[in-house]
């Protein structure tokens, strides 16, 4: 029977099916961090259970760590306790840990791929909704709650209902200034923040195939922002080239054998999906969000709509009031005081290169605070090796140490109440970057240009 990419990977991991159509799904790799794991370790201990397969777990602190002076003890007592708890739990249960200062430390969804832990055909979970990132390799990867973190620790399995499948095809050549971030913000603006709920998405088409692995990760990362559990892209030569030689990737003959298997991981020509969408690449322009969920996005040159699909006018106006915007308004010319470049969506070396390439020889606007937070120690090291750190510093950007930072405002990297922040992260929810903060999601290129101009502009006028 013809199968989708999703079906092939899912079916290869079903241990058995139980009542109610629920599958016992085997999980190949489990990433854990300090925020959603302590209660899971505590649950295991309360039940007298051991880790079932500790060699399939990798831990790193990322959400709740400072991005300055990481070599010093964490100042915030609660944060320090939580990070120490991760260290203590990993030592006690012998889990591989990349702590602060370790050359492999970083945001879970940045280090998985760069270390070769993320591989095509694998199932991966993490107590974090952006686990969908790893789907860029043709893995089934999704976020889970802490009870499920404990389940995977105890059994390496989860009880899962099989989701429906959706394919989103983007064909054609991308317009000038359009990046992966614009593609996914455009898709979510079309499908809404709930349009993917209940589905696992496969992204396909020539525009997707043309993207680098890092760009594909940006797309899959934001699948959850339309409610989809995960997103996938069929592995191809770009994927294999990226994986080859990475720390934990198969080597030599094992790699060749793996590639032979990975080449079978694509949707068969006559396989069908529960739902399909097609978007011409030509329709996609540089994007920005204006509201309080990632579905509220427009072309940067566009205007804020009068109504939003089936959303109630009350909820819509509440969102616009929070943002200080009006229906029908253009965002061009709006003054911006903060720019954040980072997060599991856009903190990889290619993102830093895009920013450095634009800001080289320029200065951020005097009223803008521009922060750039690399996704991992490896990204940071590479940025320094390429001299990007100097370019960014000369342009007036603060280059921080790796972590989730101002994406979720859990540490001290927050945006003040009422301030506008153009952010390369993934969520513009109320208060996400700090109580009262107003977030506008955009690509690294849009963020870089905004930092220099100090306001929202039609970026296509600033490109060569």
């Amino acid at each position, binding site marked *: 029977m013809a199968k989708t990419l999703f079906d092939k990977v899912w079916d290869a991991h079903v241990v058995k099916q139980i009542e*109610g159509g629920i599958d016992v799904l085997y999980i190949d790799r489990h990433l854990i961090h300090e925020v959603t794991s302590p209660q899971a370790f505590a649950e295991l201990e309360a039940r007298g259970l051991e880790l079932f397969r500790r060699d399939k777990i990798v831990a790193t602190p990322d959400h709740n760590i400072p991005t300055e002076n990481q070599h010093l003890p964490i100042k915030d007592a609660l944060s320090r306790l939580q990070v120490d708890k991760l260290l203590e739990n990993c030592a006690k249960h012998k889990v591989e840990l990349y702590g602060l200062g370790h050359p492999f430390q970083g945001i879970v969804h940045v280090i998985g791929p760069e270390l070769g832990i993320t591989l095509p055909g694998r199932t991966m979970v993490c107590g974090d909704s952006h686990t969908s990132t790893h789907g860029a390799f043709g893995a089934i990867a999704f976020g889970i709650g802490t009870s499920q973190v404990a389940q995977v620790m105890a059994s390496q399995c989860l009880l899962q209902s099989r989701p429906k499948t959706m394919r989103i095809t983007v064909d054609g050549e991308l317009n000038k200034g359009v990046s992966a971030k614009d593609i996914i913000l455009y898709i979510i603006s079309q499908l809404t923040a709930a349009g993917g709920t209940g589905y696992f998405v496969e992204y396909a088409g020539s525009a997707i195939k043309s993207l680098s692995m890092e760009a594909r990760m940006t797309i899959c990362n934001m699948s959850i922002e339309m409610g989809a559990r995960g997103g996938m892209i069929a592995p191809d030569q770009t994927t294999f080239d990226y994986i080859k030689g990475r720390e934990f990737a198969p080597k030599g003959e094992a790699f060749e054998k793996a590639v032979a298997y990975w080449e079978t991981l694509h949707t068969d020509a006559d396989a069908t999906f529960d739902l399909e969408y097609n978007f011409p690449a030509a329709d996609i322009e540089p994007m920005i969000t204006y509201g309080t969920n990632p579905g509220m996005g427009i072309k940067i040159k566009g205007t804020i709509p009068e109504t939003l699909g089936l959303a109630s006018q009350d909820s819509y106006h509440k969102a616009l009031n929070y943002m200080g915007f009006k229906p029908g308004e253009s965002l061009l010319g709006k003054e911006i005081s903060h720019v954040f470049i980072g997060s599991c969506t856009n903190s990889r070396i290619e993102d830093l290169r895009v920013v450095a390439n634009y800001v080289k020889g320029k200065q951020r606007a005097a009223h803008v605070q521009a922060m750039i937070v690399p996704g991992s120690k490896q990204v940071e090291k590479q940025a320094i090796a390429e001299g990007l750190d100097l370019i960014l510093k000369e342009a007036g950007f603060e280059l921080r140490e790796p972590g989730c930072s101002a994406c979720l405002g859990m540490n001290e990297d927050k945006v003040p109440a009422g301030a506008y922040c153009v952010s390369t992260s993934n969520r513009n929810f109320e208060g996400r970057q700090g109580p009262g903060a107003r977030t506008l999601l955009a690509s690294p290129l849009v963020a870089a240009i905004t930092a220099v101009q100090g306001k929202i502009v039609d970026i296509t006028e600033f490109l060569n």
Partner: protein
Amino acid sequence: MEKVVKVISSAVPLANEDIDTDQIIPARFLKATSREGFGDNLFRDWRYNNDNSKKDFVLNDSTYAGSILVAGKNFGCGSSREHAAWALYDYGFRVVVSSFFADIFKGNALNNGLLPVQVSEEYLQGLLAAVKADPSTEVQVDLESQEIEFNGKKATFEVNPYKKVCLINGYDDIDYLVSIKEEITAFEASAITI
């Protein structure tokens, strides 16, 4: 997990759509390493100003009370933080009624004995209007018969048969998974290992 069978209560109306888990419990309150006490910060930034004075918000309005939260569509979207389900439960909610739930939140709720009841948009609007008109309106949610009722208006709701058994008996998935470790080990021996 506590058993869930039947909940009869007045309800708290929160008509906002797309309520994300960052609103339910903001990230800065996720620093705890235990499951308890999150109810104090449930809807923190909608309930309190920065100086901790109370805002005009339904949880601060003594007109409304009860263990059933009635919320607008796409409830629980965003972050996978199970703390959102813990916060709602810790505050005293046992049921959330909405016309649409985000996947991860729904799973987390079911794993904590917090029952997500999905109804039609029309039924939801009727329920919100009834509760606003008369805050003492009694809402009955019966998991056994999978029915919700207020003012004589009934609707049925879906719940996975396996999860229903778990909820009624207070079983956790982990008990089951640990009980089939031998089958899992056998699966590992036959699985594709890359």
